[in-house]
Each structure stands twice: as C-alpha cells, then as structure tokens.
C-alpha cells in the first residue's frame, strides 16, 4: 500500500471516529448517580449534596455526650483527641498555632462532611443525617459561631460565616 493510500485511510478513520475517546478501551460499567447513592457523601461549600433534615445544638448536646465525649472531652475542650471548641486565636501565636474549627476552618460545610464520613471513631457513617446536623449545630454554637438555637439544615449551614474565612491565600493560582 502506498504511503498516500495509507494516509488516506488514516484520515478516513479519523473522520469516522466520533471522538478521540472512542479509541480507548471503554471497559467501565455504566452506573447512574442514584446508584452511586450511599458512596456519594461529599458535601460542597455551597451546600451541594447536603441531605434533608435539620438539627439544633440542644439535640446535638445529647448525642455528643453519648458518642463523642470519650475522645473529645466535656464541651469539646479536647483530650485525649482533637479540641472541637476553643476561642483561642490563631493570629499572634506563631506559625505553629493550633488550628481549631473556630480560628481556622473556612467552611462550616467541612464540619458536616467530616463528621458524616469519619465520625464517630471507630464506627464512622453510623450517624443519621439528622444527628450530624445536630452535632454540627452543637459544635458551631459552643464555638460561638452561630446564635444559640439556630437550626442547622441544608439552607442555613452553607450560609454560616466562619471567622477565619478571609485569611487564606491561594498558593499556586496557576495550578487551579
């Protein structure tokens, strides 16, 4: 076969192929978002994927006593594991200042996401969505980030303004 003929066939193949990815194996099994279901636990900062339901600090306090206090101590003051409630500032304490939910975390949705995926240790993903809302409300209220009695749900949680949210600098803007 001449080079020009081969080139012609190659060109024809390119024109027939609907897209570049048609040439890759395509061995994945199709699935629907509904069937990803139980695995799709990520909550985004704008509230995307927050579940239905709601909770208050009063409800959260009871769950906290039952499922969290052994590791995080009374009122979330920490010990033996992470401090959850603290008004200690970040600024002025050096580069090694302990980062807390109040003095550091930029998004309240992170509290929901992390409790739901990883807590309580070692029985993660056993809390109901309502229990998670209640614990988030409890932690945010104890930290004086939300007004007492504020109900946490899919609408209110993403609107919570975290105190340190404006103190971040994107290190490599060109990488995003």
């Amino acid at each position, binding site marked *: 076969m001449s080079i020009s003929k081969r080139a012609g066939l190659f060109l024809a193949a390119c024109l027939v192929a609907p897209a570049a990815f048609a040439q890759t194996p395509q061995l*994945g099994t199709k*699935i629907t978002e509904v069937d*990803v279901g139980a695995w799709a636990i990520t909550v985004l900062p704008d509230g995307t994927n927050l579940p239905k339901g709601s909770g208050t600090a009063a409800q959260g306090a009871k769950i906290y006593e039952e499922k969290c206090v052994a590791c995080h101590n009374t009122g979330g003051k920490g010990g033996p594991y992470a401090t959850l409630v603290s008004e200690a500032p970040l600024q002025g304490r*050096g580069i090694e200042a302990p*980062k807390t939910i109040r003095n550091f*975390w930029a998004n309240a949705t992170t509290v929901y996401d992390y409790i739901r995926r990883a807590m309580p*240790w070692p029985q993660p993903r056993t809390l109901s969505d309502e229990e998670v809302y209640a614990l988030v409300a409890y932690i945010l209220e104890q930290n004086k980030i939300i007004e007492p009695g504020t109900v946490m749900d899919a609408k209110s949680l993403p609107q919570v303004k975290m105190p340190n949210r404006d103190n971040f*600098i994107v290190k490599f803007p060109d*990488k995003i």
Partner: protein
Amino acid sequence: MTKKKDGLGALDQVAGNGLMSRRLLLGRGAAIAGAAGSLALGGTGANAEPLKDDEWGRSQGTTTKEVDPRSRFEDKVKRTLSNPNGEPRTQHARTPHHLLNGTVTPNHLHFTIVHTGAPDIDPAQHKLVLHGLVKQPLVFTLDQLARYPMESRMAFVECGGNSAPLFSPEPVQATVQQIHGLVSNAEWTGVRLSTLLDEAGVDPRGKWVIAEGGDMSALSRSIPLKKAMDDAMIALYQNGERIMPGNGYPMRLLVPGYEGNMNVKWLRRLQVTDQPAMTFHESRNYSPVLPDGKAFKFYFMNEVKSFITHPSFGTTLGEPGYREISGVAYSGGGRISRVAVTADGGKSWADAALQGPVNPQAFTRFHIPWRWDGSPAVISSRAWDEAGNVQPLRSEFVAARGETKEPVKNLLGFPNQHYNSLTSWGIASNGEIKHVYI
C-alpha cells in the same frame, strides 16, 4: 601540579574544604579508585592480613524461598514508627534514607501515613466509581482497569509535612530518617486518569475532581481538573508488584509532585465538581500558617528540595581522605537541573554530578567527590529544577515562612508544613556529625 598524598592534584579541588570536580567521577574514575586504595594503605600503615577461605563459602548455603528475605545483617535497615501499637490515631512510618542508596525506595521501606489503619481490601470486590459532572458515570473493577494501556513512571511521594522539625529555630539533632523520612520514590504503573475522564466525558463546568479512599475515614481531597487531565494516574503497581497495603492496595491516585495526602490511597471514588470540597485535610492540615497569621491554601506542590544522605547524622566519619558526598534531590516542578554542594558552610559551592536518568517529579541522586582533610567542615546541598525554581537558603525560607517560637522537641510533630530549605551537616575533627544551620 602538586600531588597530594592521595594522588589527586590541587587543581582538582573546585570549592573550599576539599570539594573536588564532579568530572572525577566520570573520565577519571580509575584514578580515584587507585587513589582511595593507596590512601587506605597510607592511612593504616599496615598491610592487609593474608586472605583465607571463609566458613560460609565452604558449606551449603540457605534454601531459596518464594519471597526473598533480606540478609540477616540488614535488620537495622527499617522504618521508624510513630504509633507501633496502632492506637486510634495516625500512624507514620519513615524511610531510612541514610541507610539506602540509589533512587528507588524498596516497597517494604516506602514511607506510609495511615489515619485509620490500612483497610484489608479484597481486590476482586473493590470498585472505583467515576461520577459527578460527567456525561456518563462509570464504575470499574480492578480487572477492568488492568486491561487498559499501562504506563510506568518514576515519582516521589512526599507528605506535605515532611521535614517539619526544620521549622525549629535551633537545629534538631536527628537522622535524615527522622527529619526527611516522609518522602519515598518508586516506579508506579497504572492507567492515566485522563483516559477514564475522557471516557466518562467531563462536563464543561467541571473544574475539580474529588478523590476518596475506601479507608475507615473515607479520606478525600480535591484535585484540580487541570492536574487530573495532565499527568495523574490510577496506580496499580509499585516497583513492579501490586501496591503495598499501606500505600493503597489495590489502587491509589498518583498526582506526581503534589503533596502525599492528595495521592489518595485505596481509591474508590472520583467525583467531578465545579468547586473544591474543602475537605478536612485541605481545610486544616495542609494549609500552612504564615508568620502574619494568614495561611496558604491549595499549596499542593512539593517544591524543589535536596538533602545529603551520605554522610549524615547518625554516622561518624572515619579517617580523613577521599570519600563521596551524595544525596537525593527532587521537585514537584519537574526535573532536577542542578545540585550544588558546599563543604565550607556555604562560602563556596561546586556542582555535583547527577545520576541519570533524571526523571520529572522523581528522586535524582547526586554525587560529588570530597577530600576531607580532617578539619571541621559543614556540608550542605542546594537544588534547582528545570522550571527555574531553586531551593531557598534558610534565611530566605525563614523570612517568608517563619520558625517556631520554641525549639522543636517532638520530632514526630508537625508544627507547620512544606519545608524545602537546606539541610546541613557539621563535621567535627573527630568525625562526629551534627545537624547545623547555615
């Protein structure tokens, strides 16, 4: 030209305190070997004892095993553990760089950090799902992925908190393993993530990929789509064998040059989104605090860095004379282009030889011949990458990133993240090595 006792000329010295030209490692290697031999004779002043047949060579050796163990004399070459009893907190295992050579970290010595233990994943049951802002969500088994075109590449993986003890205002007295043990280098083999993303069809709104592991804490990180489409890989093999459990068996995300935590292990889910998830780890641990109280977010890249492994703290130099200084250099910014070494505390520097092939985002070993005259010396290394980034001097680094208020006492702690300045070793006349700052 004046010849010294070891047969090397004064003109071979290219920087202060006995650093010699790296070219001696190439064209004149034989001369160096001969010189070292004559130095050994001159140094001891005695002849070697007559040779005899050794006992181990006159009897049947050990039986060959299916999986080879190391020599029993190498038992001291091991990782150090932060949490050997598996208490309910993070476990770190650090690589003994001062006892290794070359660039490949053996799999059983590759560093690991696991937050909730390594899950015991059955590869026949494991699934990877790719969904979110895509035209067609897809789920893959390991067998399906293993049929894709495979690609192999060298890559370092480094914890964003590696070298954290060097934020101390006073140099900690610790080995390379204790200071820099949370980085390792391996050949990873797997499937390009871009291939799978193209098959699923990324929606134009997609800007991030949230990667999640199948561990107890379902660890997750947000990866820019830019990186995911560039050189990210679903890695299935580590140095030729299936990935070790502590490194993500049966599959992990490899994002070359980006902080270790983003290379999500036990990978089970990838979700394309229009925004970062601001997960626990990216919100808290890997956002380093700056001296003014602000903090960097999305630090991602591990910047150009090098350290001398031989000689280093924990060993003692013997008699004066010829020896080699060597270490590793690497950069998230690409290939290492240059490493300079000093033996006089930074007054003068000489370029080290780079052992090829020099791969991007991978360990490059550097070597330079050195004639130690037995007087106090301070050795250090500094690396450059192909993108023009240079490893900052300590004064530059501290000015930008600060130090801890008190000297660091806990070598296992993480007072801050992303340290990439110099590591320097002070050598006393008696051969003792201390960690020093220059």
